[in-house]
């Protein structure tokens, strides 16, 4: 076995995001055509003694959707939460390695995680609108909470339209955010995340708490959002990954086993474990 068995080196001519061994640093000189929007190099996450994410290296191109799949407990959520430094708040959590957005290292000294999170938005597993706020206030929350006053009506409308929610709520913007249905709440949370104008959108199983119809709407929305944003979505559903993503990364036990174009991962995986997972042999 090689010292880094989990990591795969892909042929450089492949147009897809690359995975490379940690030893080859710096492995990814920005490519001439399209540089990565998000680039992860030798990322490790520890919770106290538990090594939860092991030596992950990958890249995501702008305006693409990367789906992160794997059996539960494989570190999918832990991985994307490292992309906007949500682990900073967890006592005992430690992150090593580098995460670049537009070439800027998020974990470098001098980077304010608060400012960074405005560039890298996040949507969570369960819809979590602020219960004390109306629909309107929820969308504008990222602005008002940051102390940006003024009239946000235009931004609110714009974001609700982007989240395909405007027509459903335009007559009751002053109602409680929690008065909406689960699927609407999740789209409200997406609108809320869009209002701070992020470049990257992280989605942590955004449809896992929703019914199939609401899920379909979210997936449709992801297709549209891709025009503008770079999206990383964690999903436990392989069908969903197949439907929404351009590339797919398969995680197992904290390691990135394989990453490639979604179609290839599902039809012609290189790794045995990937094949076993996508064909339902385990997971």
């Amino acid at each position, binding site marked *: 076995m090689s010292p880094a068995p989990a990591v795969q080196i892909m042929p450089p001519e492949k147009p897809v995001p690359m995975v490379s061994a940690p030893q080859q640093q710096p492995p990814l000189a920005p490519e001439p055509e399209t540089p990565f929007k998000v680039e992860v190099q030798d990322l490790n996450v520890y919770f106290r003694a538990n090594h939860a994410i092991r030596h992950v290296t990958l890249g995501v191109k702008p305006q693409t959707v990367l789906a992160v799949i794997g059996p539960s407990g494989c570190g999918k959520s832990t991985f994307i939460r490292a992309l906007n430094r*949500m682990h900073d708040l967890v006592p005992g959590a430690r992150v090593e390695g580098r995460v670049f957005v537009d070439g800027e290292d998020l974990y470098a000294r001098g980077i304010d995680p608060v400012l960074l999170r405005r560039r890298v938005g996040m949507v969570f597993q369960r819809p979590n609108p602020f219960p004390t706020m109306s629909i309107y206030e929820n969308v504008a929350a990222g602005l008002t909470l940051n102390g940006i006053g003024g009239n946000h009506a235009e931004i609110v409308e714009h974001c609700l339209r982007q989240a395909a929610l405007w027509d459903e709520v335009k007559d009751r913007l002053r109602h409680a955010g929690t008065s909406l249905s689960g699927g609407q709440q999740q789209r409200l949370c997406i609108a809320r995340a869009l209002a701070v104008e992020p470049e990257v959108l992280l989605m942590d199983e955004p449809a896992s708490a929703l019914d199939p119809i609401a899920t379909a709407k979210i997936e449709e929305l992801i297709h549209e959002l891709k025009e503008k944003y770079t999206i990383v979505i964690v999903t436990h559903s392989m069908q969903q990954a197949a439907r929404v993503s351009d590339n797919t990364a398969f995680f197992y036990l904290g390691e990135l086993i394989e990453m490639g174009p979604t179609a290839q991962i599902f039809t012609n995986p290189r790794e045995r474990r990937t094949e076993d997972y996508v064909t339902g042999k385990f997971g």
Partner: protein
Amino acid sequence: MNLHSSFTYRKVVDRGMALVCALFFALAFIPLLSVLWLVISKGAAGLSWSFFTQLPKPVGEVGGGVGNALLGTLFMVGLACLIGLPLGVGAGVFLAEKGDGTVGRSVRFMAEVLSGVPSIVVGIVAYALVVIPMGHFSAIAGGVALAILMIPTLARATEELVRVVPASLREASLALGVANWRTSIRVVIRTAMSGIVTACLLAVARAAGETAPLLFTALNNQYWNTDPRQPTASLTVAIFNYAISPYDDWHAKAWTAALVLLIVVGLLNIASRVLTRSRLKGAR
């Protein structure tokens, strides 16, 4: 083996003990209903507009009220709120946000233990802290005593309320690029706010019913007083003085004043319950 009869016996014991427990439950109603009924029936007769607005009159004279005592109670509870609510709620937020370390645990333990300190002891503390330096009894001293009583209980109540705010809300806010402190104040505490208001109302109700710590801090006053440096009357001390007096007329006043006190405390409790309900509805 007489399995059957032993089973019957066990069944009888089971039913019997359940009945005893139910009886004890009923027993608790007797003092409750007795207190409420007597305060209402004996106190209602003396209720009149002048009872709320007039000064007490000497023995033998008809009429007179507890207006100054009512005002004094409001005044001192107000003073206590100025000190006690921010400190109590603040300490509670500290316990919820930073309370998992050694310091936090000892603060929590101290708050729990302090909430059981007898109110009369707190009266002595306020006496030494305020009355002696000032040289005389005052509303401030009474307010300080009530505030010290409020803080530990309110801190624990606030902590519980802040802790039940789902972590997902904090995360949602942080993920929007909102700073920690803004998230704590404008999302977490904001969400717990209606509960905290409820806890504050209950703390106010408890303070309004305190007597012992006022006896030798605010003392009493026969007249209207709005000067925080002067001795001040309170509803509870008035009830006490009327009750232990030898005059039937004053006894009647004690019952009426007790009714007024129960109404005040009851309204605060009801208000807190109404708030609790609206909070639950809002939170799905």
